[in-house]
């Protein structure tokens, strides 16, 4: 079979999951797309290995996470400063399914914007864990498999991330 076709058949079923992961890791469209792209390029170079892997989706997620960490080690805190407002997760705010009550929608959007800003104040380790667990519904063991961090550490990061979010959101009046 043609290499390109074989590659596509292996990776395409996982695209949505990988794109979501890229978004949650980076928090910005441009960076998520770059990460997604870099993963595919790397994976294509490992096609011989990829065909032998039982769960290519999980493998691809791990490789993506490692690519993300490598990049972060090179430029700590880059995300917070490179991302412009229009590229933040708020990109998706306009597309939120709303109801017919504009006041309610505005309040909700405002709260989500505050959440967005609060998440940006967390360290990468805390932000990623809380988003994967509380937003994406990953289990602790799945986060362990993805990040290579022991479950105990994942739990501790989750606890601290939530506590910090509570502190920030209380201070800015988002929650009371």
């Amino acid at each position, binding site marked *: 079979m043609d*290499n*390109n076709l074989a*590659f*596509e058949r292996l*990776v*395409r079923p996982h*695209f*949505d999951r990988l*794109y*979501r992961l890229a*978004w*949650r890791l980076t928090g910005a*469209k*441009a*960076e998520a*797309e*770059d990460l*997604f*792209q870099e993963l*595919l*390029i*790397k*994976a*294509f*170079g490992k096609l011989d290995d990829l065909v032998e892997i039982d769960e290519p989706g999980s493998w691809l997620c791990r490789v993506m996470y490692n690519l993300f960490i490598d990049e972060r080690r*090179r*430029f*700590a*805190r*880059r995300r*917070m*400063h*490179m991302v*412009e407002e229009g590229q933040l*997760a*708020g*990109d*998706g*705010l306009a*597309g*939120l399914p709303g109801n017919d009550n504009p006041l309610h929608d505005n309040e*909700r959007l405002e*709260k*989500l914007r505050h*959440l*967005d800003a609060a*998440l940006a104040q967390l360290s990468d380790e805390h932000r990623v864990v*809380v*988003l994967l667990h*509380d*937003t994406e519904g990953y289990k602790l063991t799945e986060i362990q498999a993805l990040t290579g961090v022991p479950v105990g550490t994942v739990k501790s990061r989750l606890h601290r991330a*939530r506590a910090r*979010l*509570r502190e920030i*959101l*209380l201070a800015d009046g*988002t*929650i*009371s």
Partner: protein
Amino acid sequence: MHNEDIDKQDQEIQALLKDYPMPAADAGFYDQALVRATHEGSRRQRNKWLLTGFGAAIAATIAVWMIGGMLLTSPQLPDAGSVIPGVTVALEEPRTVNLVFASATALDSATLTVTLPDGIELNGFPGQREITWETSLNEGRNLLPLTLIALTPTGGELLARLEHKDRDRTFRLRVDVT
């Protein structure tokens, strides 16, 4: 604060996190990403065969050395301002240029600003002429890979401005387009 207050706040946060949105990929993004991956992946594999050894691997990209004079103690090092290195990129073909910053000491909270000439974009930042971010520099050499894409054949001068506390230094890179 009472435990029930904390529980209520946590529930609110949980509800917000569950709602935290994420847009779907643009139409056609997956297809384009696949095409680029197979194209770029094949190119890298060819390079892998052609280029062996560490030295050859380095030659695979253009390393533009920018010596941060302000950060170095040796006064006889070349002044980056007097030499403008150049790079040639093909129209609409991404090309990675590695900028190397040498620092005598580790620096926290340095600010790096890249200003692009008209018609040149940084991959992943369409339409942005100036990109700024805060970064840390390690003692020694610090690599900054920039993937440039020329959208017009004009070319020009790329500026990379490094600031730390009250000191700053601007480096220039001439970008020609073929």
